[in-house]
């Protein structure tokens, strides 16, 4: 397995480099260093001299990819791409164009994102599986049909509605939890109840339907019929046989998103004032802060690659038939 992991790691290097170059090219097609300087310097009293100063101070006064005026290897190293993007491969995120250390910011903001996303995922998983099993238990009955209709209704409602509705009902009408905010340590719990509740609730419709499909596929298989023929009750069949086998696609689906939980949710964090990473990239794009954009895109790619790798590994853990070679 270790050989497989090393090989996958080596495969990911050109992939990450490609992502890096693509981000760089796309960003500078839209924004020139002059535009970035103007954005950072504001709108009042910006002169050509102050733009030149800004570019010089922030290292944007050299060519983008190839420096014709330089000698030897400096043709490559004296460029914005080399100086700004290559360090990323060593996880050196550097300083944002507004002067803050990106690594420190990411470290600080990742935990609040995780504090919302992880319980939402775990509780959501539990709730969805329970409801899906219940629907399978009562399949072909009016209970299942009613459940399906309810799921479709829940799926059809925008997540924004759940957020605003949840804030209105729980935060404003019932006044049970703060409507938004965050705190450190255990004090964060009262701020997390509502976003987690809404996150779980908004995912019930699609989650239950998806897991129900997985369970139904298993329920019709021969080994389930054998279990029933042996005299096992329906609940015993579902929990002892169907659930473990259906867990393979469920688990792989969950593992792939685990690393990305750090990246947060834009809308949820915005509405609940969670100081997470959700809006970090969007804010950076709006303020043309290339340093943050490149760091976040790179980090997203790395986490996605890790997620895929973990998925492959998890296959071997949950399904003995799968071997990595």
């Amino acid at each position, binding site marked *: 397995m270790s050989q497989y992991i090393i090989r996958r790691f080596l495969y990911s290097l050109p992939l990450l480099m490609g992502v890096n170059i693509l981000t760089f090219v796309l960003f500078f097609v839209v924004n*020139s260093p002059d535009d970035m300087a103007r954005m950072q310097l504001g709108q009042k009293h910006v002169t050509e001299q102050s733009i030149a100063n800004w570019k010089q101070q922030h290292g944007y006064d050299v060519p983008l990819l190839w420096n014709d005026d330089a000698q030897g290897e400096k043709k490559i190293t004296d460029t914005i791409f080399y100086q700004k993007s290559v360090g990323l491969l060593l996880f050196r995120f550097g300083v944002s164009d507004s002067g803050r250390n990106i690594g420190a910011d990411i470290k*600080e903001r990742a935990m609040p994102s995780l504090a919302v996303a992880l319980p939402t995922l775990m509780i959501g998983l539990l709730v969805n599986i329970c409801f899906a099993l219940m629907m399978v238990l009562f399949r072909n009955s009016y209970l299942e049909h009613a459940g399906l209709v309810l799921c479709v209704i829940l799926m059809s409602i925008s997540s924004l509605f759940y957020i605003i509705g949840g804030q209105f009902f729980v935060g404003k009408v019932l006044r049970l939890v703060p409507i938004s905010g965050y705190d450190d340590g255990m004090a964060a719990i009262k701020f997390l109840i509502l976003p987690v509740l809404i996150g779980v609730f908004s995912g019930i419709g699609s989650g239950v339907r998806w897991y129900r499909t997985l369970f139904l596929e298993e329920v019709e298989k021969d080994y389930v019929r054998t279990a029933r023929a042996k005299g096992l009750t329906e609940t015993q069949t579902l929990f002892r046989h169907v659930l473990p086998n259906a867990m393979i696609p469920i688990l792989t689906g969950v593992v792939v998103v685990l690393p990305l939980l750090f990246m947060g949710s834009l809308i949820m964090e915005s509405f609940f004032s969670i100081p997470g990473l959700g809006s970090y990239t969007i804010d950076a794009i709006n303020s043309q802060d290339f340093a943050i954009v490149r760091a976040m895109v790179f980090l997203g790619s790395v986490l996605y690659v890790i997620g895929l790798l973990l998925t492959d590994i998890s296959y071997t853990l949950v399904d003995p038939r799968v071997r990595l070679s």
Partner: protein
Amino acid sequence: MSLAVFLTALVSCTLPISESLNNPYPENESEQAVLYQSFSERPKHFDPAVSYNTSEYAFIAQIYEPPFQYHYLKRPYQLVPLTATRLPEIIYLNQKGGKLSYDVNDSDIAFTDYMIEIQSGIRYQPHPALAKNAQGDYQYHQLNPTQIESAASLNDFKATGSRELTAEDYVYQIKRLAHPKIQSPIAEIMKNYIVGFDDFSKQVADKPKTAIRNLPIAGVTALSRYQYRIRIKGKYPQFIYWLAMPFFSPMPWEADMFYDQAGLTDKNITLDWFPLGTGPYLMAENNPNRRMILLKNPLFHQESYPAEGEAEDRQKGLLADAGKKLPFIDKVVFMLEKETIPYWTKFLQGYYDASGITSDSFDQAIQFTGSGDAVLTPTMREKGIQLQTSVAISSFYMGFNMLDSTVGGTTEQARKLRQAIAIAVDYEEYISIFMNGRGIAAQGVLPPGIYGFDDKTGINPYVYQWQANKVQRKKIAEARKLMIAAGYANGIDPKTEEALILYFDTTSTSIDDRPRMNWYRKQFEKLGIKLVIRGTDYNRFQEKMRTGNAQIFVWGWNADYPDPENFFFLLYGANSKVRHGGENAANYHNPEFDRLFEQMRNMDNSEQRYRIIQQMQEIVRHDAPWVFGYHPKNFSLFHGWYKNLKPNLMANNQLKYTRIDTAARAEKRQQWNQPVFWPLLLGVAVFVLMLIPAVIAYRRRRLQERVMREHLSSRETKL
């Protein structure tokens, strides 16, 4: 029986409880003098040499103290000493440095000296940069890698120190403004005024920030421990306003020595994030992703609440605290609130002490009386909320690129076309539709509150007329007549014999902007003109403006200081954006206007200056390089427990004057935030009821299975 228990539970859930569950702040803060505010945009800079943004000034103006400030209560705005002992002594000098009398011609003045004396005994806030050890050496000026590694924030440097403010600190800050590595946005302007500023800037370009301390700058000198002199070129009376801005706050050299140590930037411990000032507050926490906390500076010098104000201030209770020591509030918490819905709800719950009014909540908060006055709705009045309105010292306008061959130029045809458009674009309607009435239509370049603004008779006679003692926009028929005179009868362009096509360049490209763009299109359609909206991103728009490729655009200006010069310079020929890279976005150039501007800008306020301003207004109204748009009106809401509030659009350091009645706040919060549990219990009950069919079905199925098994086993036994 069970129903009775359930009903009892429901009733008990409606009884008041002592603690509000939805309180986002620690319970022990409720009785303290803590002010809660919000911010929606993450500030970028707290270095007073760099910061140039209202949202940043909300913080740093409480921390840094320039020598002068605006009087909190008096109007029109007037400067008073802050750390200075008195207003500066101004001395005019000739080319040889000889002193001139005050009535000398402006052209004879080669230099002006500003002599500023500061108060003794003012001390900096406690800060690690000023901490000294037993030997008298600075404790944290030579940090080793271990110390840096172990520090996560500024608070990890436990020892703090302070020292007295000196004139040298003001000189040092001006040197910082000049240093290219600091990137001060006003460096390029100050090069034109402060003697030796440009030379100093070149001299230190390749030197570290810390090297400037011992290098002299020709025009700025500390004459003694408490007195310094700034020498500027020629006469520039508006310079004193700059001295009331955070740019000219003092900075101890120790700050740069401390923050410039390698490794601290990687921890986000920089002067740009952790200010060091003498003001009423110090920054105790800086987390721009979540909250900022200001605490009362324990070493703040003696400053008292003003004892004078406008005539009605005493009646409004604004002088009740006259003579009392400032500040009144112990702690200010700024919470990041990006979305308006939770922000507004928290304000109504009493968890924010003040709020703006977004368009979503406008109808909930404001209603208009028959005479058009904005008043609070009964719901707001019941809560004891106060409304304050004030016209911002800013102007928004629709500009014509005067270099454009169709709408620009000084020809009679182009001028009439612009005047016709000025009549057709109905900004009263715009304010009503898109701003909920929060603005006043502009009659000229100057907003109310600026010297030279004439609110009685000063209408734009090319767009408005008096009708039954009321100012009315001219009828569209008059605009159509102007179109005929301009050669575009019914909006037809004689060259193409089709509708005249004009181009409107804008960055407003989102779906939310569509109604506004359609409105502009309709305004031009009144004249038969086809308006093409050219939406583009911010960068391309700026480029078009710089190169003169935009035709019609919308622009705005927020005053740096309350002087007409700060508005008229937007139309001064030498500030043309295309030719000189200045702020004259319309590229307007009128020699007579420029001559009057040059005469007016250096004058003190007087009858003569007033007359010149009116002449300049007349020229601009006649030439119409702008369609005068509107001056926004700020609507702010405050809870009844928030005291001593008076809109001051120039001062940013108002927090020190305000006061919180904490007992009233705690009582109201308690009253407004009683939790309600019964719907929750009802929901649980409904859920349980919904489960009953499932349980019954499940039991039935279990029974069937058991019967089936018994049946099978009995068959097996028989067999």
